């Protein structure tokens, strides 16, 4: 327990940890402030204004179509006739239903509709911070010789590395739970002031809760992978290098090559797609070059669906591989 306490203290004391957490919170605050100011509450005044705008637009377009018809009739038998259809009745007058007043409503924060995107934003940002904090936490220890010092005190390699990882994961869990709670409360407030949360049912809240739980999973895996990679390379830069390598080689490089080679469902090879699948429960990828014919709906593109279970499986495999490799090398390699 004393080692765990020391490691938790070390993690929290680190300037890098504090800086990155503060940075992530500032960005999240900026997102919340931005959402507050770009949305507004929709009341009877806004609805009436939107209806008036839709009506005005309908009338304007109706006038234009009537004028076009007149011009069409007048142009018959003249060289200008080519500008119009042969039958001027084809220029149909618009219907009032074509002009939806909703289009003229100001942006409003519908909690049920928009908050899931905010949870994804929170998860992505905290996952990035978790990866870097995890990598730096153990990478700096290796790099500075602190790990060797610690092992002179506690010559139990797996226990030391395992305790460090536990301290990191518990710390990240605490950070995520608190931040997610504040994030939810802030957006519920924004919805109250600049939108609506009326459509939230207990089922909808449960769904939000589960999504935030998946966000926690993503953040913990990101932290553990950063930690594991930096421990494998005994340097923070190792983890950051791997991530940059993955982005350059797999995301940009592989993405471009697969697109050029017209590979089916090329997006399925890209990490963000799997992250979205995890967070949004599923993602459907369509191959627009194919035709899956059906008598009812005609030619439809072929599609595959990546579910959150599939994405979770991939995350679990990556987590286990990296952490096991880090533990194995910790046990086997000389510490010089």
């Amino acid at each position, binding site marked *: 327990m*004393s080692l765990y306490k*020391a490691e938790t*203290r*070390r993690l929290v004391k680190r300037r890098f940890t504090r800086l990155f957490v503060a940075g992530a919170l500032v960005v999240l605050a900026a997102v919340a402030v931005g959402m507050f100011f770009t949305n507004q509450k929709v009341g009877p005044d806004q609805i009436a204004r939107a209806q008036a705008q839709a009506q005005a637009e309908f009338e304007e377009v109706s006038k234009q179509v009537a004028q076009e018809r007149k011009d069409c009739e007048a142009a018959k038998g003249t060289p200008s006739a080519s500008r119009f259809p042969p039958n001027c009745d084809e220029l149909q007058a618009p219907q009032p239903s074509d002009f939806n007043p909703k289009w003229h409503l100001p942006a409003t924060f519908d909690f049920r509709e928009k908050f899931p995107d905010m949870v994804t934003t929170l998860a992505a940002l905290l996952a990035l911070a978790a990866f870097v904090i995890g990598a730096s936490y153990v990478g700096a220890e290796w790099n*500075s010789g602190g790990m060797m*010092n*610690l092992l*002179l005190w*506690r010559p*139990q390699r797996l226990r030391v590395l395992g305790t460090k990882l536990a301290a990191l994961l518990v710390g990240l869990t605490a950070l995520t739970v608190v931040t997610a709670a504040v994030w939810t409360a802030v957006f519920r407030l924004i919805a109250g002031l600049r939108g609506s949360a009326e459509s939230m049912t207990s089922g909808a809240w449960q769904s939000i809760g589960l999504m935030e739980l998946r966000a926690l999973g993503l953040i913990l895996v990101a932290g553990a992978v950063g930690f594991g990679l930096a421990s494998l390379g005994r340097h923070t830069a190792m983890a950051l290098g791997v991530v940059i390598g993955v982005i350059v080689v797999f995301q940009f490089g592989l993405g471009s090559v697969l697109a050029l080679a017209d590979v089916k469902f090329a997006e399925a090879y890209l990490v963000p797609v799997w992250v979205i699948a995890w967070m949004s429960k599923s993602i459907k990828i369509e191959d627009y070059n194919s035709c899956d014919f059906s008598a009812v709906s005609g030619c439809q593109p072929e599609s595959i669906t990546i579910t959150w279970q599939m994405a979770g499986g991939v995350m679990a495999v990556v987590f286990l591989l990296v952490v096991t490799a880090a533990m194995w090398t910790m046990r086997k390699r000389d510490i010089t």
Partner: protein
Amino acid sequence: MLPKVSPVTAVLEIAGLQKTYRSRKGVRKALDGFDMYVEAGQVHGFLGPNGSGKTTTLRTLLGLIKPHGGRMAILGQEVPHHLPTVAGQVGAIVESPQFFGNFTANDTLSLLADAGDVDQSRVAEVLELVGLRDRAKDRVKTYSLGMKQRLAVASALLKDPKLLILDEPANGLDPGGIREMRTLMRNLAESGMTVVLSSHILGEIQLICDSVTIISAGRRVAAGSVADVLATHTSSAVKVRLEPGVDMGAAVALLRANGAQVAVEHDHFTVANAGNPAQITRILAEREIYLAELAPVAADLESVFLELTGTAPVEGQHRQVDETAMAPAPAQGGWGQ
């Protein structure tokens, strides 16, 4: 067959320790059957030229490196198997002091105290002991090498260990600091602590240590009390100083012509193989060259070290780090032999 652990008051015992590094360049034996024995309450000097295996020995002993053979015991417990049990009684610094630069000395020691179940009050005590009390709240990255060295010693002392292992503790210290360190080592030994001290400052070792082990090319080449090691390597060298104004070059040439091994210094010369110093006076007096001083050269630890490890500088040659005297394989291994 592996040697048996001796039942006497050994705090540290190493027998037949082996460590081999394999790389694309080939195989290098860092430790080649190394033996070491340190008795309780001693200040023991651990000497060896660069690359001789000193740090590898200490790292292996402390569980940082896995050996390929041999046996080790600390406080009677076989290590590395029982290292977690004895670690609380061993304070160590290995090679240069390494700390996380953004933490203060206080934080650094406080975290170590937490990790090792040591009372936090001990932090202030050891900082006082090594003279860092007033700088305890400064970040370590602002420290000089000597201050980091003091902090490293403080971290090793934090556990109030029975065995203190210090690798180059005087490195970077100013003369006052070296003297303080010497006094500290002696006081610790008098309080019952056993201190193993690795250093290249041989004059210091000679002053502080009760016993020494000298390692070269991964093998022990000498061990025992400082007096014994010096006694077994007494030389027949004599220091010769001529009368002022006498041509020293001519005298040196004359002696060399008669088979003397002469090393010329600034205002005198030494004859290494002066079994019969009277021969020197006779040869020179025949040419009317008279001596102002003829004195035996007392063996010191430095000359013994250089002789045993074969690392004495040779004029016109640039010795490479791995060029050391290969110690003969010990006739028999064993604890404390």
